[in-house]
């Protein structure tokens, strides 16, 4: 088991938040496997559980949050069974994360250098001076100009794009096997977004790490992911390659999502938003989570959670529509 082909394997992960108004089931049985050096994209709207999945892997959930069941295997070892001490060693050295908002993700009262050096010294035997050298090296790597000067500055003296570069440098300090990017470009303007994505791809090639890209931006995901996972209501609706998802969507939610963004095909048409509101995670429907908003919903969708069904070589979807189609096809045959 210890020598797994996968750098990360998530099996039937459930995460809940225990609030005053009840248990909020944010993640309801997520499975995925990640090979070294590959990129997995997780897309979904706000509240679909994509960030919570990422935080669950790192076990950096808010105080009320807890993994209620399931496994997270890092190279075959279940890290949900790790003690807090072991997790501290895991975080930052084996698996790092960069966050959505670089403006608030760096501590305002410490210099960028201090924060980078802290990350380095936590997981290596380097002293302060060696850590400083490494920090300058890292800032160079992520394309921060004049790092010798920049390292002495406070976060508020860096621009948004530069702070995200600082964050990436910090995440890469110990050359982790996995980099989780939680909406890394959402808070940045478009030109900087492209630069940051390019940088991440370049670094992935150089360092050979696996990336989990969490985003609600389908454009970001299309260009750089080997596999895409579409999430809704804490479950995976559909997974496949970019071609599968974009050209042959097999889940009503994905189809709706694609109808709602501008593409070459719908250039001159009105965009169609998905009706309704995201589900209330406090009170999950018995059947498919998307059913209340789905135009094609059938009787079974109300009561039974759809299983993942293979619709192509690399393509799986959890939608009863596919079963119906398969059934009709078999009847015709």
């Amino acid at each position: 088991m210890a020598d797994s082909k996968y750098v990360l394997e998530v099996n039937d992960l459930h995460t809940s938040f225990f609030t005053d108004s009840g248990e909020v089931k944010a993640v309801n049985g997520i499975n995925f496997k990640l090979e070294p050096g590959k990129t997995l994209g997780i897309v979904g709207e706000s509240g679909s559980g994509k960030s919570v999945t990422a935080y669950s892997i790192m076990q950096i959930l808010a105080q009320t949050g807890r993994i209620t069941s399931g496994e997270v295997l890092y190279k075959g070892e279940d890290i949900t069974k790790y003690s807090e001490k072991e997790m501290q060693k895991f975080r930052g050295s084996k698996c790092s994360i960069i966050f959505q908002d670089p403006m608030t993700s760096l501590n305002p009262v410490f210099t960028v250098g201090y924060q980078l050096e802290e990350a380095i010294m936590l997981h290596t035997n380097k002293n302060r001076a060696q850590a400083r050298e490494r920090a300058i090296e890292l800032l160079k790597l992520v394309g921060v100009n004049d790092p010798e000067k920049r390292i002495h500055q406070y976060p508020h003296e860096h621009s948004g794009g530069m702070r995200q570069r600082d964050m990436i440098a910090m995440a890469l300090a110990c050359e982790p096997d996995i980099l989780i990017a939680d909406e890394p470009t959402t808070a940045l303007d478009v030109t900087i977004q492209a630069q940051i994505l390019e940088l991440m791809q370049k670094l992935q090639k150089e360092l050979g790490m696996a990336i989990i890209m969490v985003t609600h931006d389908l454009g970001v995901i299309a260009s750089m992911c080997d596999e895409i996972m579409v999430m809704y209501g804490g479950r995976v609706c559909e997974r496949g390659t970019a071609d599968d998802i974009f050209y042959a969507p097999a889940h009503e939610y994905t189809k709706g999502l694609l109808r709602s963004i501008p593409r070459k095909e719908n250039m001159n048409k009105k965009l169609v938003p998905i009706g309704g509101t995201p589900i209330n995670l406090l009170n999950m429907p018995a059947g498919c989570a998307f059913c209340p908003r789905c135009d094609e919903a059938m009787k079974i969708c109300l009561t039974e959670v759809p299983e993942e069904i293979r619709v192509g070589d690399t393509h799986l979807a959890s939608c009863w529509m596919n079963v119906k189609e398969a059934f009709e096809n078999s009847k015709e045959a």
Partner: protein
Amino acid sequence: MAKYISKRILLAIVSLWIITLITFFAMNAIPGGPFNKEKATDPAVIQQLEARYNLDKPLGEQYRLYMKNLLHGDWGISTKSGRPIWNDMIEKFSVSAGLGLRAAVIAIIFGIILGAIAALNRNKLPDRLIIFFTTLGTAMPSFVLATLLLLVFCLKLGLFPVFSSENPNYTLPVIALAVYPMAYITRLTKTSMLDALNQDYIRTARAKGVSRTKVIFVHALRNALIPVITYVGPMVAYILTGSMVVENIFTIGGLGSTFVTSISTRDYPTIMAVTIFLAMLMVVANLLTDIVYKLVDPRIKLD
């Protein structure tokens, strides 16, 4: 920084001058004077006394003379004791400051620790206990607390002497002085700590693999202390100058009780001296607060 400090000192001189002006004329507007007694005094004696303290001159002239002497370092002579004020004032101040400094240190240390404990155990028993007692601490007037302390620990339990001037025991007065600021700092620290703990940079620190203790005491606490510093600066100045109520209840001759006595006896030079001295302390405390602020929070620009 040097430019900022010199600017602040210039401004402080202006405020101090305005304070002398207001105090001087307000004080003289109160009916009665230092030599009005219940028993009639010989008019010749009064005249002689008034001449000695320049009280026979017009008010504007009196002020001019007072300021001239003050600028030459002469704080005047008390109309009550007939002795130079400066030495007496410093002596009383050292008593008050000795008490106040102990109380301030206790308030700051325990306030921050209790606040952090409350924040980390939010809605659990330690938090509820701390919040209950700090609410009590902020709500109870100091004369009630001081009297209760005296009643319970001195009279009922006999743990401390009620008062002895040869061997003064400062424990109870220090407690009486420290409770309110401590309770206030506790609540302030709890709120700002909770706020800091919910910030994104705390999540970043955890994601780096920083231990829980270090996340709390390095990454969160330093940010949480910023609002606390704003309160602590003026609080220290206030507490150092002594509390009239606590000093009176524990019969401690400090600056607080001196100040009140000087007003009731219309001891003009002492009123002026103590007011100016307290204002100077306040100004220095505020300036120090701003400088410490800048050291803790690099985003603040002093100019």
